[in-house]
């Protein structure tokens, strides 16, 4: 497939911290409008991979391309302004200000003032945090903070959405709402979701990429992945000597 059909491609992406290789020669590609789940045990390099994609870390080697353009080493804000939105593993929010102000600030990047207001209100409603609009973000529970951050990401209307463990700390209802939101988002944007919650993954995923020790271990449909013994062993923490 040509690069034109891909929103994101990485070529031999390598991220090393001293002697530790966090992302190991990853060749990854994502089509426009595709929903992909990333699985892998803790420390597999998923979050570091996201940080390399968004310019929070400059890769040691390799390239990141967004719609064919080489964005390796770009500043975070420049990459984001191309249309990338990210919800980080630990919610990154403006703690001292209200939920509404947080989301409005995100919406303001793309919209003029009145539209930004409408957009922020719509996103609060969509993500189920409208009743928290005036609350200070720093005082919210973890699950609520996750939803606020998601609302911020969606308010930016990105074409590539990166969600790092979005369901962590959520109640059952919140998780259900989140799954619906992810599926709805995937109708208008490409989405990559990193998650450990298998019930959640089953609900949203079709094609899955499994990371292990910084490298891509498997790429297959969800059913195939879930029945793969080697993947199960990775998740059970065994040092399986399995061939990829």
């Amino acid at each position, binding site marked *: 497939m040509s690069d034109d059909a891909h929103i994101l491609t990485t070529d031999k992406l390598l991220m090393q911290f001293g002697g530790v290789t966090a992302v190991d020669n990853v060749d990854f590609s994502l089509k426009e409008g595709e929903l992909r789940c990333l699985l892998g045990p803790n420390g597999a390099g998923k979050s570091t991979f996201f940080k390399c994609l*968004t310019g*929070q870390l400059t890769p040691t080697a390799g390239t990141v391309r967004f719609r064919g353009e080489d964005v390796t080493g770009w*500043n*975070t*804000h420049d990459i*984001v*302004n191309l249309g990338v*939105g*990210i919800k*980080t593993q630990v919610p*990154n*929010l*403006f*703690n*001292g*200000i*209200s939920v*509404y*102000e947080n989301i*409005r*600030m*995100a919406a*303001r*990047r793309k919209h003029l*003032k009145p539209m930004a*207001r409408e957009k922020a209100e719509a996103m609060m409603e969509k993500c189920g945090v409208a009743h928290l*609009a*005036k609350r200070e973000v720093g005082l919210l529970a973890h699950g609520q903070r996750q939803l606020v951050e998601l609302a*911020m990401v969606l308010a*930016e209307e990105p074409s590539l959405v990166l969600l790092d463990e979005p369901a962590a700390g959520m109640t059952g209802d919140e998780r259900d709402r989140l799954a619906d939101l992810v599926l709805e988002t995937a109708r208008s944007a490409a989405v990559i979701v990193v998650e450990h919650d298998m019930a959640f993954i089953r609900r949203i995923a079709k094609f899955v990429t499994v990371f292990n020790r910084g490298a891509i271990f498997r790429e297959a449909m969800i059913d195939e992945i879930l029945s793969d013994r080697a993947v199960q062993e990775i998740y059970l923490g065994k040092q399986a000597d399995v061939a990829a």
Partner: protein
Amino acid sequence: MEKNLAKDIGFWVMLGIGLAVMFIGPMVWGLFEIMQITQYVVLSVYALSLAYIWGFGGILSFGQAAFFGLGAYTFAVASINIGETTLPFALSFILPALFGAALGYFMFYGRLSDVYLGVVTMVVTLIFWKLINHTAGPEYSIGAARLGGFNGIPSIPILNVPGDAGAWLDPAQMFQVFMGILIIVYLCLRLIIASDFGRVSVGIRENETRASLLGYDIRRHKVIVFAIGSGIAGMSGAMWATYQTFIDPNAFSMEMSAKALVWVMAGGVGTLAGPILAVILLQWLSLKLGTMHILNNYFILGAILMGLVLLLPRGLLPSVRMLAERLWHMGRQKMEENAASRKATSDV
């Protein structure tokens, strides 16, 4: 849902007090009081410069005196050479703002962390202080203005009516003009803070990573915030120079930088009115303690500041605000309880 400046009672109260003091003050105060309060006004403008960059931009500068001194010397040199004070006064804002932008560019685009930023701003101030102290000889002149080294520059022109170099302001007029400047600076800063730019600055203060993940260029934002603060500090330096008609290297001293930090910390980081309140209280206290000769002035002031930091860590204004809110809620709760018990009695 958005904070609207027009509906902010605190803003209108501050504006009302400011205008009342500006117009009624000279009618009721004697010359000594006017001179004294003019000093508070100048230092309040200086305190606002740090209150803005620290409280609303998250930039902790240990070297605000560098811009204060730069503004003071710019005004002194330019007004001595030009003879008229309007352009020098404007330059006292512009030059420090440009210098602040240049310094900020290297600091923020160089991605200096907070600690190093503090060190760099402090070192820049010390360099200025050292440099200006070594300009005592006649060779250190800019036009007709001799820099004077540690002796400073005397006979700095008093502020005049724009365009008329001979029409100097008397102390009461100077007080009113400076009050006007303080009100305008306060008003402008409130408008900036309420604008989208200001909201993003607060966002950057709260979480730089999220701000950049939303696509905001935090380095550019910080440079602009720093330059605005530098310009205001420079302008207050010019006010100080024309008020005293004299300036010396102490304008660049660490004490001058520390004072700004103390005022903002004591008044409340993240407020504008707080540091103004702190300037008035602490300067007044300093004056009173100085005349009493009980103990060393700095010793008592230091003890008071330590007490403030320990007992009111959020600063004077936020603590007063919190207390007022608590009393208000308690009062409302009490009234509701009384109303409920009256209703219960009448139902019986």
